[in-house]
């Protein structure tokens, strides 16, 4: 290579570096706690489709497994946003520290937007036709007081008392194996576990959308079990960035609604969903809080009140205090 070529390359490199360091191009950084599950789909879509970049936002993904880790990070301002936080856990955290998790979007679960469901082992399908047939059986539940009490609450609503069946909470990673080994007869599980079980021929869904039907009293009612939450600190100190982040999120929600098949592809590389199941994992009813109808707000309040009834949310709250429209 000739000397002048080397010099021109150095000069071009220098210009590129100068350009990258230029303040005009600096993007607003937002720290996001990401629990890699299907509920976080709008985040993956917004990153993948470049919606955050368009809004001049550079999200920093911090992988955090489960609610307690996300809440601890929100409380200490280590993250500005939790991409997905279980609603009852967020409300509980807000009682301990008001405004720590302000929901800007929520994900609805119904019989169509499947997430929580009761499953039964394939061998017992002929015997167990409805939830009432769980009497005397050995059940498993997703771990944590919220899912466990939810499962017990639903079974109580159909007349099965605690003791007429046994129920043990079990780590989600063990659900498929435990059903395959016949350790349990059925249980209260979440996606993608239910789809995996069904594909493997281990278990079948007995009923999905059970929170809507039995807790909210309407099969079509939106059970807003999880959502995207901002810290009050983020909303108050960087209102413009928070607004742009919410707008990018809304754009991702629109994309999921209009192109669900394409949106699903973002689950493959971002979550623990097996590649061959990406196309069959049910979608959730992703909704921005600003678009809530009065009926949907009522469902959210009813859901929170049920959390209080089963002791997961220690006191009755007004859910309007913990949602934020952009």
């Amino acid at each position, binding site marked *: 290579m000739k000397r002048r070529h080397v010099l021109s390359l150095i000069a071009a490199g220098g210009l590129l570096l100068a350009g990258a360091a230029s303040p005009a191009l600096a993007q607003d950084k937002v720290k996001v706690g990401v629990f890699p599950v299907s509920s976080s789909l709008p985040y993956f879509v917004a990153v993948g489709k470049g919606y955050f970049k368009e809004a001049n936002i550079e999200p920093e993904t911090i992988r955090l497994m489960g609610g*307690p880790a996300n809440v601890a990070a929100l409380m200490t301002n280590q993250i500005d946003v939790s991409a997905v936080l279980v609603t009852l856990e967020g409300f509980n955290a807000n009682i301990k520290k008001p405004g720590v998790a302000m929901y800007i979007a929520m994900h609805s679960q119904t019989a169509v937007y499947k997430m929580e469901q009761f499953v039964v082992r394939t061998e017992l399908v002929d015997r167990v036709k409805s939830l009432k047939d769980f009497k005397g059986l050995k059940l498993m539940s997703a771990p944590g007081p919220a899912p466990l009490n939810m499962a017990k609450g639903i079974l109580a609503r159909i007349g099965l008392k605690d003791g007429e069946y046994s129920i043990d909470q079990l780590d989600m990673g063990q659900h498929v*194996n435990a059903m395959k080994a016949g350790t349990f007869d059925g249980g209260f599980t979440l996606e993608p576990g239910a789809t995996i079980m069904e594909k493997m021929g281990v278990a079948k869904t007995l009923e999905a959308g059970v929170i809507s039907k039995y807790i909210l009293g309407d099969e079509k009612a939106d059970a807003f079990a999880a959502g995207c939450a901002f810290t009050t600190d983020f909303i108050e100190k960087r209102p413009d960035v928070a607004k742009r982040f919410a707008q990018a999120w809304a754009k991702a929600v629109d994309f999921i609604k209009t192109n669900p098949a394409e949106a699903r592809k973002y689950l493959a590389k971002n979550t623990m969903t097996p590649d061959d199941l990406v196309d069959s994992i049910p979608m959730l009813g992703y909704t921005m809080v600003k678009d809530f109808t009065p009926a949907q707000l009522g469902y959210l309040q009813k859901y929170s009140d049920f959390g209080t009834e089963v002791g997961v949310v220690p006191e009755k709250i007004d859910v309007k205090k913990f949602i934020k429209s952009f």
Partner: protein
Amino acid sequence: MISKRLEPFLPMVGVLGLLAIWSLATASKWVDPVLLPSPITTFQSFWKGMDGGPLGFDFVKTVYRTAMATLFAAVIAIPLGIVLGSSERLYRSLEFVIDFFRSTPASAMFPLFLVLFGVGDETKISVAAFGAILVILFNVAYGVMNARKTRLLAAKVMGASRLRVLFDVMLLESLPQTFVGLRNGVSLALVIIVVAEMFIGSQDGLGHSVFEAQQLFDMPRMYAAIFAAGALGYALNLLFLVAERSFVHWGGK
């Protein structure tokens, strides 16, 4: 020089130091008080839980599971360790398996034990016993293998049979090392039980208590359960230490 009369209080220095740092961290709000409550709040929760509350019940359940796991482990590992230790060739032929599973985290074995024993106490006790067996076995076998040659030789010279040498010399010689194994074994059993109570189907126990309190962000209750688990581990270690001193008072070399 510290007065002899004050020596028994030396362990309190560490406790007081820990409490001082903890109090300072919460009083000065280095850590959010919601995430780290003060020692007083934590001990109030501990007392409330132990005095007829659910923590006392969870504590008893964990003690029961740990005791059962250690008992099973000891009953299996001590005789097996003596047999393996008495023949170095036999031990060497199984050394890989022992060391392999001794190095495998017990929590990685949960799925296997869950499939074998289902949920319930059987799984938790068996997986903890499995972990403890290997630690006790390893120590007992090495205790037997390292029995002092002079004593073995003396017994043989005096015409003791192989069986008598095994029980009267090797077994007693291995006791100090056996107690080391038991102390490690009981600590490991407690750790595995608490982890199992957190992650494989459980309705009670200290692990369940920690997990549930964490999910509900009831931090005083969570730290109270952690404290109870730590205190239990300390007490069990002390128990075996006292037993060792009573049984192996002749063990000085």
